[in-house]
């Protein structure tokens, strides 16, 4: 009889195994074989899906390993999201080619470390465990962000992220300490029990602790007012890292917000819900307005990702099953949509060496496939039907309207128009402007495949929403 804890840990163990294998190969192989190593990493991550599916269908949700580790549908859904983004980001990394001068193998190792951290964060049922997993993610990203050692922008980005990220970690830990002080436990289940005595309102230390912890987490999500690092870091970091930050790291942040607010502090929803609603509205407005004047595509995507964080928070602010399901659904569609955009950005800058939007002029002639993929992905980001992004926004706005957050819904709806403006400017540049340099842009087979997958996912999720809505509902708190 295999202990349940071990079965629950299988995906994490598999990543560990993959990590060791890549490490061993990295020591033996020359730098030139790095693209094979990338392929190995991507393929090696794929068995995670059947593993997670198997866990979903045969293991019961439970707290394991002395209550440190939690296996529930939400953790499994997010692990799926992390795995998918890790695979797509690995494929993107292969495109970097000579941009990374040394240490290709280590780059993949770091990606795996971050993924492992996200997996543990998804399953944490204890504040210490949660903090350690979040640190694992954060520290990996500090290194990854500064990975282009000769590029000043990358170094600057890494430094900024390190300084501000450490501050956020400090706040988080401080907040956890206050919660521990007030409830006497680090265990989620015990904290929940202790909190059930404070239904009407939270005592000051607890509220203080909650706000501090939230600040630390919202930094990861990049919500206002903890969003200032985003544009510089997104622009400076290597593109795959930016992509991973915008999807994986953000999803991890949202997951922790879910765990803390909707699981531990659900009974006090009336106290934090208006705060989150305000943050959501401001974040949407900031991100979308800030994106308008941008001329660099990565910076623009940085701002737009702030806007998307705001949408994700709508579902949390409403504190309903529909809202949580909306956030989950939004994340699933955001994963494929945003990574599709970043895949195009990577493929484009590999050939042209540029991330400036004006250089995208005439992309529809240079590479009709890349332009079409970008067009569809941008529309999905803006929330145009029948693409995946639309239904996510639809669910979130619906939950906001149903819960009486009408102004928030109006902000969310107005931001769709704003975002459409800056996304369509890119589309116009790609389709209507004349290219300065008409040489075709080649697209490698793995990127083409990954993009096709993303496109199918965007259309599939957008048209056939039922199954994905069921998954999102199953993974949300009741």
């Amino acid at each position: 009889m295999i202990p349940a804890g071990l079965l629950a840990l299988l995906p994490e163990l598999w990543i560990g195994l993959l990590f060791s294998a890549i490490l061993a190969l990295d020591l033996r192989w020359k730098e030139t074989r790095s693209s094979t190593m990338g392929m190995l990493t991507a393929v090696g991550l794929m068995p995670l899906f059947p593993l997670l599916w198997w866990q979903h269908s045969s293991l019961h949700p439970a707290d394991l390993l002395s209550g440190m580790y939690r296996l529930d549908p939400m953790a499994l859904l997010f692990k799926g999201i992390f795995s998918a983004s890790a695979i797509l980001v690995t494929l993107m990394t292969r495109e970097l080619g000579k941009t990374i001068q040394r240490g290709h193998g280590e780059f993949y190792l770091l990606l795996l470390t971050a993924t492992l951290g996200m997996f543990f964060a998804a399953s944490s049922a204890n504040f210490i465990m949660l903090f350690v997993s979040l640190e694992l993610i954060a520290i990996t990203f500090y290194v990854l962000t500064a990975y282009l050692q000769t590029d000043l922008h990358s170094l600057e980005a890494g430094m900024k992220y390190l300084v501000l990220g450490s501050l956020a970690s400090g706040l988080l830990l401080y907040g956890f300490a206050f919660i521990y002080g007030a409830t006497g436990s680090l265990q989620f289940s015990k904290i929940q029990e202790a909190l059930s005595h404070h239904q009407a309102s939270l005592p000051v230390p607890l509220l203080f602790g909650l706000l501090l912890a939230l600040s630390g987490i919202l930094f990861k999500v990049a919500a206002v007012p903890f969003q200032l690092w985003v544009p510089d870091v997104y622009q400076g970091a290597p593109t795959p890292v930016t992509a991973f930050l915008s999807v994986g790291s953000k999803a991890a942040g949202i997951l922790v917000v879910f765990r803390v607010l909707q699981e531990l502090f659900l009974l006090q929803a009336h106290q934090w819900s208006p705060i989150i609603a305000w943050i959501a509205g401001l974040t949407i407005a900031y991100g979308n307005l800030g994106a308008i004047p941008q001329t660099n595509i990565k910076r623009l995507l940085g701002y737009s990702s702030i806007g998307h964080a705001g949408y994700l928070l709508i579902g949390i602010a409403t504190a309903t099953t529909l809202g949580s399901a909306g956030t989950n659904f939004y994340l699933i569609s955001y994963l494929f949509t945003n990574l599709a955009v970043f895949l195009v950005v990577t493929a484009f800058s590999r050939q042209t060496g540029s991330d400036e939007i004006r250089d995208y002029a005439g992309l529809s002639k240079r590479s009709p496939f890349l332009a079409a993929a970008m067009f569809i992905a941008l529309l999905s980001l803006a929330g145009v039907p029948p693409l995946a992004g639309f239904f996510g926004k639809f669910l979130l706005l619906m939950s906001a309207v149903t819960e009486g957050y009408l102004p928030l819904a109006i902000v969310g709806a107005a931001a769709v128009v704003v975002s459409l403006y800056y996304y369509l400017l890119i589309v116009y540049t790609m389709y209507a402007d004349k290219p300065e340099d008409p040489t075709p842009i080649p697209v490698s087979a793995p990127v083409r495949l990954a993009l096709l997958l993303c496109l199918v996912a965007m259309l599939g999720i957008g048209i056939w929403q039922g199954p994905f809505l069921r998954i999102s509902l199953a993974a949300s708190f009741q």
Partner: protein
Amino acid sequence: MNPITGILLCPIVGSLILLLVPQRRSNWVRWISTVATGIPVLICMALLIQFPRGHAGYQWVQKIPWIPALGIQYQVGVDGISLTLLLLHVLCGFTGVLISYRIKERVKEYYIFYLLLIGGVAGVFVSLDLFFFYLFYEMAVIPMFPLIGIWGSGDKKYATMKLTLYLTAGAVLALIGLLALYAVSGAHSFDLIFLERYLTQNPIPGHLQKWLFPFLLIGFGVIAPMWPLHSWSPMGHAAAPSAVSMLHAGVLMKLGSYAILRIAVQLLPQGAYTWLPWVALLCIMNIIYGGFVALAQKDMKFLIGYSSSSHMGYVLLGIACLNPVGLNGAVLLMFAHGLMTATAFATVGHVYDQTHTRIISDWGGLARRIPFISTAFIIAAMASSGLPGFANFVSELLVFFGAWNSYRWSALAAVFGIVITAFYMLRAVRTAFFGPLNMRWAELEDAAGFERVPYLILIAALLIVGCWPRFLLEIISSSTGTVLSHLTHLETIAKL
């Protein structure tokens, strides 16, 4: 297969097939598009003949559960109102494909976007589920962006951006309204047929209706286009390629008035009674102001563009009447104006493609050189001025009669609007087509042979309905009757 789903799927499947056709096979692309828009015309004709006269309610309804958890289903069907507009749409869509044979640049992409647009608009007219209604509505807006941005002319970047943003802003405002409607109705359903029945028994409280109605009115009013939200429209018409202008002025603008009638008025009758008098006032601005602005235009496409937004004022006025005569007039006018304006844009496009100028005074004497196109334009101008024998005359007359009792001033303004229309239309005809031929255009080619087909189809439809309006009015009035009986029923409940 359900005929309505067939009409909806033809263009969408067509555009998917086009994705697989090689770029250089322009003729294949044209043929596939012709078939994909031609089949809906045939189906729609057949439906029109089979439509049970005097029978209220939706026909050929198909319902497939889609997301039961939220009360969303794929549900399509038509009643007299939507069938009339669907007929207009498939005619404009089909003739638009024929007109677009002239396009030589990036043919494949053009038709892909065009067919998506056709599919989206058709979806709005046939959807009987609010979720799908919105989905198709937005799907109809977005393809306009590349269509104008790539194949347009003039200040196309500004025009296409303005158009897309205005329409999307209207759409999301309407979406908020729809979601709020869903939340307060308590029916947990987006099913339009069910909602109509459910809300007759359990109407939404009056104060909520009054508060919800503006969301839908303004949201859909942007595309109608209701003054002062109209400024995107003439600009968009002018910058768009001919076929897109045809569809845009001919059909797309009708989406707004159709949505106001079908959703806002029908589901929120008390809101309608409160707010529609204001719409009747705004209509005066639409008609008179739009007419005067049209009067000042030197560019032929801008002239027709402003004329269109002026004439949509009549449609809104007809809806605001909330009586059978006015509503029938509004729906018939949507049909007649759509055909008329499509003909006008098609002819202007024909001339512009060769002259590369749309300034009216630059043309001069074209009737000598291109008699067929000139005749087509003159027929459209006559129809627009409300000459008897055209459906426009009949429907505008109905709108006057409908508005006379309740909105006397608006009705008078509408009559005056006809005079303005006649003035600028006749002046444009005289300057552009009569007088001495401008020798720059001595080489101008008339539409010949096959090229005449789209014009003939549009004009034939205009004349048939003009001489025999009962043909359409019968099926329209049975459906507007249902809308109104629904309203009066609610009024009696409210009074009790």
